[in-house]
């Protein structure tokens, strides 16, 4: 990203959560660990913002309280909060979240990614775009877009 495009030079930053502690049940071979909110949060927290070298967690874009998971009903809903209401990166961030989840969750899940209600000017339009499978896959055909999305995700894997 070049300097000219930065919209929010000085965003608010938040403290990171500590690493999830491994519990005794998690070490026990016989217990089945359900997929929960924190697990989804851990997948997303280190994705970096397209504008800043900061993670979505540090910018409070994803919060554990805005994630809904139902392991039995196979549904995952993520609500994310752009740093400013006019952020033009909102779609891109949503796309990164969606791509990350599609790649790393079992296919039985229906993944919904939405903007937290009231946090963005064109909330509805963005939500609609992200819900439309064909538009998502068409977006990923665009190599420039895919490059930015991958760059955001790649840091979360280190």
């Amino acid at each position: 990203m070049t300097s000219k495009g930065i919209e929010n030079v000085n965003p608010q930053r938040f403290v990171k959560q500590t690493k999830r502690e491994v519990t005794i049940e998690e070490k026990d071979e016989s217990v089945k660990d359900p997929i929960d909110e924190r697990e989804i949060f851990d997948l997303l927290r280190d994705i970096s913002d397209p504008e800043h070298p900061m993670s979505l967690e540090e910018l409070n874009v994803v919060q554990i309280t805005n994630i809904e998971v139902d392991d039995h009903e196979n549904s995952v809903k993520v609500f994310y909060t752009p740093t400013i209401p006019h952020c033009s990166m909102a779609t891109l961030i949503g796309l990164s979240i969606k791509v990350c989840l599609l790649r790393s969750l079992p296919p039985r899940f229906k993944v919904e990614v939405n903007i937290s209600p009231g946090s963005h000017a064109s909330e509805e339009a963005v939500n609609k775009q992200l819900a439309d499978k064909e538009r998502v896959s068409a977006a990923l055909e665009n190599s420039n877009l895919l490059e930015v999305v991958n760059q955001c995700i790649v840091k979360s894997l280190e």
Partner: protein
Amino acid sequence: MVTPTSIQKLRDSLVLQESMSEAISIVSQSIASREITILQLVENLQPELLHQQAAYRCRAVSTIASILEQLAPDLKEINEKEIDLITEFFCSKLKDHHSILPAALHGLHVLSSTNRLSPGLARSISQAIFQDVHCQSQLQHDRRAIYKTIKNLLALHIRELQILGQDFVFGLIQAADQERDPRNLLILFSIFPVVARYFRLEPFTEEFFEVFSCYFPIDFTPPANDPYGVTKDQLCEGLRQCLASSAHFAEYCMPLLQEKLESDLVSAKVEALKTLELCCLSYHPTQLEKWIDTFWKCIRREVLINVNTEELEHASLDALAALSRAFAANEEFKNPAFTKLLKEILSECQGHLCEPERRLMTPSSYVLLAICSGNAPACALIVSRVIPLLMDQYRIRSQSAPRQFILNCLNKLVQAGLYGFTEIDVAQSGISPLIPTLLELYLEVLKEDDALLCGLSLQGLGHFVGIGLNHQDLEKVNQSLLGLLQQPLTTGHTIEEIGRFFYKCAEQNESWFVEKVLVKLLDMAVSDKANGIFLLLRNLPPLPRIRAQVLSQLLARLEQSELRLEMLKTLAYFAQHDEVQMFHQLHSWALKTLKEGDPPTSLEATCGVLRKLASSLSSEDATQFIDEQIGRYIDQHLASSAWVVPIMEATLGSLDATPVGQNLEKLIKTLEPLTICHPNADVRISACRLVAALINKVPEGHELESILDSLRTKWQDPSADRNKTVCLFVWITKALLMRSYSKLDQSIQELVEFLNDPTHGYLVAEGFKTILGETEECLNFDSHANIRLMYRQRFFQEVVPRLLKLYRESPSCNKSACFAAIANQLAFIPEGVLVAHITTLIPLLIQCLNIEQPDQLIISTITAFMGLMSDNVNAIEEYISSLVPRLLTLAKDGLTMDVRRLALRCLSQLRKAQTVVLLPLRSEVILRLIPCLDDKKRLVRREAAVARQKWAMLGQAGCD
């Protein structure tokens, strides 16, 4: 005149156009032994030197140059007059046919490396080169000879060349202009700074600057498999030195740097900033002042506005620091341009510091710290302005997050403000009037119920130790810290930080610390009033008074059984050299605690301390101990409890002396049955280790052989329990291997045969880990074991071919034991040795990756693969296509989650291999990882998600 035979031979081979190297070395030897002189040589070669055909002349000149090279660099066999003549000779040859030039240059290069050139010669050589050679029309090699000659002359005869003045500079400009070869450029970049520093460049300053500045910024990628090894970094570093070499370049260099800072290329910006950093050292502040503003704008853009890579941010801040350092002297500090800059930076950064929850707070603090570093007056100014501001900000916030950011920033500024000051002159620092209020704030933070804030406060307080805190203040801080330690809610993190603070205090003033703090700490520790105190004690510096205090207090209280373990651990930390008394005291105490039945809980810890003390006894004390104790061990103590064996191991196994003669015989005889027959496994292993430790130290000869013979009957005894004999055998083999025993070969053969045992082979394979691993208890450097260097490699190279032979030649062999034996060695063998065996081993190891193999084997094999990959992924690229499917199967169906996790992690790590090699496997991997995403264990799912995402992105834009 008679032609000496050696020269005659030389002439013959010259005429016959044979290989000359032999003749050349003979002639140079005869010159070295002063049988002939160099002048005789030249005279005798006259027919060739004056030959009509240039090729002959060329060969003759080249021969003389080569002979000269063999005598260089002293040329002590050649007198000064001869050197004069030879130099003149080569100079005149520069005017000869162009094909002779390289040979003449070679000769001059050799001559330039001697320091025996008489006055005037250096000048004539450089003049001859500049006048008669058009450098840039020569080949790379010859240009290199020219540059090296000049470099040598500059190193040895710079005064003479200085007389040439601008003629030399001009000549060099002409010779070096438009050089393209990186190897030559490296030489030139080392010449230019010398010339810039010691020569008057006028009127060619700009031309001279142009010669090298045209390469800025360096854009160079070395060709693949470059044999010369010139790197971009070397060139950049060289060029930077040139640009910054003289203050005269400022007027040309500054605009150049500014232009590059505006570029879009990150590498160009970084180079410009690094160069600026260097220039600030050599350029005069008056030359920098008019550029300050421009450069600050660029740096500000990189640090505060753009979001950048760390490299660029670091380079920007370093350049800013260097700029600030240039204005550190008193008169420069008042320079209006710098004052304006300071004012501007302060007002901008202060604004950001008041918004600690926003991103720009941290980079602003970096900017301020950069200005502070190395510029004391600016630092004092910034500290006095910013610290009060931050303290106010801290007090008006209530949330933890912004408070953490503020404290972090505050700590860094405190450190910067105190940097370079001591207790004596701290009053002169800008921070001194603020110390009381800072102390108040930090103490206030300690009362907060927030471990992170407490930790930060302790870090901040740590900066004051020995500089800004008087005894009263310290007393106050210690009161609160001791109070904190007694609170049950204090976390481990805080205790650790307190430990660090105490460490600093103790180092600073040991006696004060012992009196005021340590006494109380020990009281708290032994009365069990607070948690974590022992840990804290173990992190204190082991200074003499502290040690004495801790040891005396704890040894007296060992009876107190509930804290005994912690006390012993602490004793082990403080136990040091030659504490004979403590050793005996602890030893007899340990023997008293033994009884029949279960071992005392503190036995292991006690043995640890005993081991440490025993190994530090002098060999006289050790021998005395052996003489006194062996009888008692065998006759009294062993009779009452077998748990004396671990204690014997700790003492006898670690001493710097070995029992001899009867003592040894008696000891081994007593231990032998215990190694195999004792019902308790711990006693057995301990006995095995002790026997091994003894065998390791017994000198080779009759005594050792008879002990080994007797032991051999034990482990070869078919009626004994195999599980137990294997253990003994493994330990004995380890002891013999470490000392490089002369009949080791036999033992290794026996080991391989043991391995083939269908029921116990696997146990032997596990023993390979014991043989190669480090043991804490004995057979290590501390316990004075007899260890030869590289015994592990030797063992590996001996064993692997035999294992492979066994595996290939006997189809009925115990294959899984074979695999395991190989896999178990990998972790201990240096990569370099492994790589040599890689092609034979990898196919075998891949076969280990099978669900039917035991988990431990799979895990050690995967770990070995990952170890290989971390440095040397190319070595296994060939095998990736057979490795990946096996890993995928293990990832899905591995029995334990450790196997599944490790297989997935290995798949992630494979991402380091070349994309071309991996791409054909991509779709299979992505597909077969889907079930792993739904693994029932969360830890496995996490690895699966990472692996699958990495493979999904393979070959796509934005992931390289």
